[in-house]
């Protein structure tokens, strides 16, 4: 046993984050800890990494009991953590980032040549290909994560904790990451993987702990379980599969004709023509960065297209203002809930009011009516099951999943004919995801036209009546439900063509 945590309990105010949690890690093992958001899996690892102190319990690393006061202590004991949010110096090189705090010196001076050489050796040894002299700012997300891993290896960590490592990665980068994790375990490192993505758990783990409401509820060998069982253990009840009726074809509510966008001389969108009918969910599948974000920005008025037209409920809204487009009958659950979707320093009340601030009964002749706003916020919070302590608490205090639910609540309650959902369930747990999916299907059955953009292929496949595949700003394929499997879709997404034989 390389480490063991015994009877760890941790409470924040009144919330029990960890309730008598005991777990252990064997050398060279890949251990997964799965659970919904708020199940306590991040907390237990933060305790191990010295970011939080337990109220009671014991941590044993390498046979001796330890008390970590900060991450440096944990690092000294050979424990490293790849955080969800990267901690990197953007304008510096890969090598500089890796040696920071343990610089290679020549007297008072930096020995950069040696640093570059050391990083190169490290990268060769673990098969993590990287250019030590590249600037972080020029590295894609997958490479940045690799730098984080190398940073930990440079400090001779034996135990590596990954906190939701695939949340920010594209599907191809996820594959590379899983290979890396396997490689590290083969090289003798012991791995802890915190995640709620069960495919990844099944793909790499040796052993799995399932946590729910602060407790470890199950321990399984990966070979002896399956995704259904793990999912059921995570949420505490069997998952219902969606009952999806065949679509009732309605008239076209959202349409783009030859939509183009040229940015800095580069064609980001080329002649995108698509349509979404009433009572239909249309998915856009693609590896992120192939123009999905720009397409949605052009439709919703956040960016100006350089050619083509956009119609919402029959009206030409090309390059109109965001407000004009929304007034034409469009609601938009935006890609990034904190950048576009909400004001993090605003209260929940203020965030639910957004967009409707000029409507009766919320305001009259520029004077807001606090009571009606409060009632509305309370109603949405209740209806959409947002876990919040009060309608006047700050948006940033909500967990990711609950913040997303509130945004979904706001946009869906606008009751517009067209609804655009971008990454509606990114980084949120199964329970919240299921709730959001149900709402989307409900809206579809009520006759809304829904455009869904998601980097989760399973989400697109399970919800969409029709799918467009986007690659390098072009629509490269269109399919209806059931006429396509994920392998073919995946191939088109990376620019391949289908071999009809």
């Amino acid at each position, binding site marked *: 046993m390389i480490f063991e945590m015994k009877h760890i309990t941790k409470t924040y105010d009144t919330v029990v984050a960890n309730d008598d949690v005991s777990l252990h890690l064997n050398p060279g093992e890949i251990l997964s800890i799965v659970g919904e958001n708020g199940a306590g899996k991040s907390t237990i690892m933060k305790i191990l990494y010295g970011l939080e102190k337990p109220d009671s319990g014991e941590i044993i690393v390498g046979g001796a009991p330890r008390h970590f006061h900060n991450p440096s202590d944990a690092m000294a004991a050979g424990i490293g953590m790849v955080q969800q949010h990267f901690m*990197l110096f953007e304008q510096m090189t890969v090598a*500089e980032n890796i040696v920071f705090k343990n610089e290679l010196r020549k007297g008072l001076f930096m020995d950069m040549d040696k640093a570059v050489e050391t990083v190169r050796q490290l990268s060769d040894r673990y098969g993590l290909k990287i250019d030590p002299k590249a600037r972080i700012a020029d590295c894609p997300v997958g490479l940045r994560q690799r730098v984080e891993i190398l940073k930990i290896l440079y400090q001779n960590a034996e135990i590596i904790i990954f906190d939701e490592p695939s949340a920010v990665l594209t599907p191809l980068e996820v594959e590379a990451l899983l290979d890396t994790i396997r490689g590290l375990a083969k090289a003798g490192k012991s791995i802890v993987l915190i995640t709620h993505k069960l495919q990844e758990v099944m793909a790499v783990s040796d052993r799995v702990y399932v946590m729910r409401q602060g407790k470890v509820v199950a321990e399984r060998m990966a070979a002896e379980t399956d995704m259904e069982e793990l999912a059921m253990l995570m949420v505490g009840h069997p998952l219902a599969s969606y009952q999806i009726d065949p679509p009732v074809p309605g008239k076209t509510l959202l349409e783009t004709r030859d939509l183009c966008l040229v940015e800095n001389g580069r064609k980001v969108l080329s002649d995108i023509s698509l349509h979404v009918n009433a009572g239909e969910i249309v998915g856009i599948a693609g590896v992120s960065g192939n123009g999905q974000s720009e397409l949605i920005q052009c439709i919703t008025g956040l960016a100006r297209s350089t050619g083509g037209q956009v119609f919402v409920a029959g009206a030409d809204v090309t390059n109109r203002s965001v407000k004009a487009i929304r007034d034409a009958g469009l609601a938009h659950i935006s890609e990034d809930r904190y950048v576009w979707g909400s004001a993090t320093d605003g209260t929940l009340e203020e965030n639910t009011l957004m967009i409707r601030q000029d409507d009766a009964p919320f305001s009259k002749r520029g004077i807001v009516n606090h009571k009606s706003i409060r009632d509305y916020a309370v109603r949405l919070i209740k209806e959409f099951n947002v876990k919040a302590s009060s309608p006047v608490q700050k948006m940033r205090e909500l967990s990711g999943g609950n913040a997303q639910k509130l945004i979904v609540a706001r946009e869906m309650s606008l009751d517009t004919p067209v609804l655009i959902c971008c990454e509606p369930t990114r980084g949120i747990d199964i329970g919240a995801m299921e709730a959001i999916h149900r709402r989307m299907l409900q809206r579809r059955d009520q006759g809304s036209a829904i455009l869904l953009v998601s980097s989760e292929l399973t989400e697109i496949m399970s919800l969409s009546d029709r799918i467009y595949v986007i690659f390098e700003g072009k629509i490269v394929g269109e399919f209806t439900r059931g006429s396509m499997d994920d392998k073919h879709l995946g191939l088109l997404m990376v620019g391949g063509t289908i071999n009809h034989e």
Partner: protein
Amino acid sequence: MNYLAQVINSTLREITPILLVSLCAGVCSKVQVFNIALEGTLLMSAFFAFLTHYFLRNIFLSVAVAMVVAMGMTFIMSFFIVKLKGQPMIVGMALNTFARGFTTFLLSVVFKTKGAVNPSDLKGLTKLDLPGIRRIPFVSTMFSSLTVIDYLAFVLAVVMFIIMYRTVIGFRLRALGINQSAASSLGINVPKYQILATTFSGCMIGLAGCLLTLGRNAMFIQDISGARGYVALAANNLCKGHPLGAIISSALFGFTTALAQSLQGTAIRQQLLQCIPYIATIAAMAFYNAYAKAKAKRQAA
């Protein structure tokens, strides 16, 4: 010809205080402490350099006192911003207003005047006459009556470059300025680094203060800093905190100030002339930003 040499000479003397202050501003900006108290710090250290020299007649002690006063001001500034989380703009402006009021007050208490003190018997900093160039006509005028601190300013620019870009401590300072939470995640005490770095760099403002009051003759005039602190802030902005770049950007502002002075007595109005350095500041910032934007665009394409 001789006129040109004189212009270069007064340009050099205008450059060095701005250069010294922008070197301090450079460190502050690299560690992400927005220091707008440069002006007040400069004024305070200039005043105390003069005061010490007036009473003790000891040039070394005066320089030391100026440096300590400047470091004290910078420490207060960074302590309030970093530790007490004060708004940098408020903290800085409070210190500037304080410096202005405090020096004017002491001026009237100690010297019973509100304008200028210019004791004829008090000598300023020793002028350095480089033996090699004394006899070369043009060059000797160019470098005449410069003090040790004037030369030191350029040396310090190089030293600061080496510290910031070649040493371990400079590397850490630049890194933590880029991403504080990344630095602290690796166990770096970010506030400590910030406060120590800004405080020590403050001593360069002390040197600049000495140049103002002891650079030629020993004298003090109310508000002698004359917005050089703000100009240095602009100069530092222009060179993005790079110590060697600071030489060039301070040269730009030093030159325009000298130009304004040398045009005095011509047909151009005094008030217009006084605007030149500030118009140059705005113009330089605008040009630089336009250039940076165009460059970014070219790179993207």
